[in-house]
């Protein structure tokens, strides 16, 4: 018996009034939660609406009116006209390449730190943990001049290297707990069987970390997909820009066509929204796990 029912029973005749008050409170709580949900979603719904209208409809109809004749041509228009297709593909491959590299390299170092024996392991771990507190902006000027000297300015390699380095600490941090919890017997058994470390890592340990790898991959993808300042600083040609910077420049040129702006913004956020629709549990888990990153 729960305490609620117990207290309701104990109060006998007053029980009905208490239930009523309790229901009212419950309804009030729901109203608060729904109001917050509306506030969170409303700007996005409005964005979707005006992405399907032309300027006349945006400015003359009430802002919340449904797009009566949805103008999907806004989407097809901006997709190729503003180089959005190029930016989109760049975002996809740079995000995926950086994420894959981060996850593999972080797994290797986490394995070495947690499972192997060497004197400097805690010092190396400390280096990664301290790096988490360093603001990216403070590294921007030297990184620009270093990449400039190495002829990597306006080259996606500069982006991939920075994404991997800056996401490494949080990725290691999330993997760490999982690796510490791996049973030692796994290694002992494979060593006795004459397994090399490489074989043990790639064939046995890495496959065991599937679920936590997915979590780290998701937060890496979200960070990389949305990254702005490095692309804005390192990349100058349209050929290599990603969506965040591409969208910004495109809108800068066409500030008056709201339908086109709306469609461009929708295209830039849609992949993450669709992923969220299918993977929301994992994404919630990933963001919670990555919450230590300020």
């Amino acid at each position, binding site marked *: 018996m729960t*305490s609620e029912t117990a*207290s309701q029973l104990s109060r006998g005749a007053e029980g009905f009034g208490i239930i009523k008050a309790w229901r009212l*409170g*419950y309804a009030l709580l729901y109203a*608060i939660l729904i109001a*917050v949900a509306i506030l*969170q*979603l409303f*700007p*996005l719904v409005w*964005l979707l609406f005006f992405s399907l209208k032309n300027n006349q409809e*945006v400015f003359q109809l009430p*802002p919340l009116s449904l797009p009566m004749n949805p103008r999907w041509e806004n989407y097809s228009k901006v997709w190729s006209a503003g180089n959005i297709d190029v930016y989109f593909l760049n975002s996809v491959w740079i995000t995926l390449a950086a994420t894959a590299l981060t996850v593999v*390299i972080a797994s*290797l*170092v986490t394995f*070495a730190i947690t499972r*192997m*024996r060497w004197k400097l392991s805690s010092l190396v771990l400390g*280096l*990664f943990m301290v*790096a988490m*507190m*360093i*603001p990216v902006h*403070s*590294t921007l*000027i030297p990184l620009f*001049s*270093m990449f400039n000297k190495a002829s990597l300015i306006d080259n996606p390699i500069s982006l991939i290297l*920075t994404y*991997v*380095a*800056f996401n*490494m*600490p949080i990725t290691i941090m999330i993997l760490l707990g999982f690796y510490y919890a791996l049973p030692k017997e796994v290694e*002992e058994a494979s*060593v006795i069987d004459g397994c090399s*470390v490489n074989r043990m890592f790639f064939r046995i340990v890495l496959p065991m970390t599937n679920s936590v790898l997915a979590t780290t991959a998701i937060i890496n993808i*979200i960070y990389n997909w*949305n*990254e*702005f*300042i490095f692309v804005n600083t390192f990349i100058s040609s349209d050929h290599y820009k990603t*969506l*965040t*910077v591409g969208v*910004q420049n495109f809108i800068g040129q066409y500030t008056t066509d*709201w339908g086109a*702006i709306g469609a461009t*913004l929708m295209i830039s956020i849609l992949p993450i*929204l669709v992923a*969220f629709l299918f993977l929301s549990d994992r*994404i*919630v888990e990933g*963001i*919670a796990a990555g*919450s*230590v990153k*300020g």
Partner: protein
Amino acid sequence: MNTVMSNKKVIALYVLPALVLILAIVYIPIILTGYYGLTKWNGIGSPVFIGFDNYGALLRDSMFWSSAWHSLLLALFSGISLVLYLAIAMVLASRIKGANLFRKIYLIPMLLSSVAIAQLWLRIYHPTNGILNSVLSSIGIDNPPAWLAEPKLVLLAIFVPILWQYAGFYILIYYAALKNIPASLEEAAKIDGANALQIAWKIKLPLAMEVVKVTIVLAVVGSLKYFDLIYVMTSGGPNGASEVMASYMYKEAFKAYDFGYGSATGFFLLVICLIATWIIRKLTASKDTIQYS
């Protein structure tokens, strides 16, 4: 076993890629930022060592101090907004059906890029066609302000999308912390006659305090680093009224081509972030942690 697991070659092979990257992309640049801050440099020629001149100039630069003040104000707003997030999380965690769905809906803005959020809110705040002012004029407020063009309002106007963007994130963290509190504690308090508010204030809040402290550090240090949203929405304007430390650094280096001065600003930002983290950790470090498991 020991010989296999302490194979130096394998360790080097596994550690070096990550180690070289973090040293080359994070640590060496930080050292260089410190060094460039002591030079006069336009980014093209070679840096000329000038000692602490940049730092001296920085301390006398009223634009820099106002940008630091704006960063601090945003940090303060963010800190205060945590109370709101915690209250919502309390409601959400009070055994309500559909809590999981609400939690996910709240998180959606967090997944979007700051550029998309900034562009969307630029339309919301648009003086004539934006949804905010059309709603205001439809309820009879005739001359609603041009939010982002008013020096007195602009920081507040920028803070609203920040509030919107991070709501789901902090609610998610608080929700998890509150859900970790054993139900038996709440039930015991109820039997003793405590009402919902008393339970929230006297039991749930103290037990979630450790997490609250972590989020204070996250919110404050995070706001000291704001850049993308402000760069896109106002680029520091009008007249520097929304300039923050990171945007000021960016302007000095990449717009005014004063890399030495920009580096000094960047180094200052780093030091302030580290000091802020340290101070908040010290202030909020509890001597006795509460045991409830």
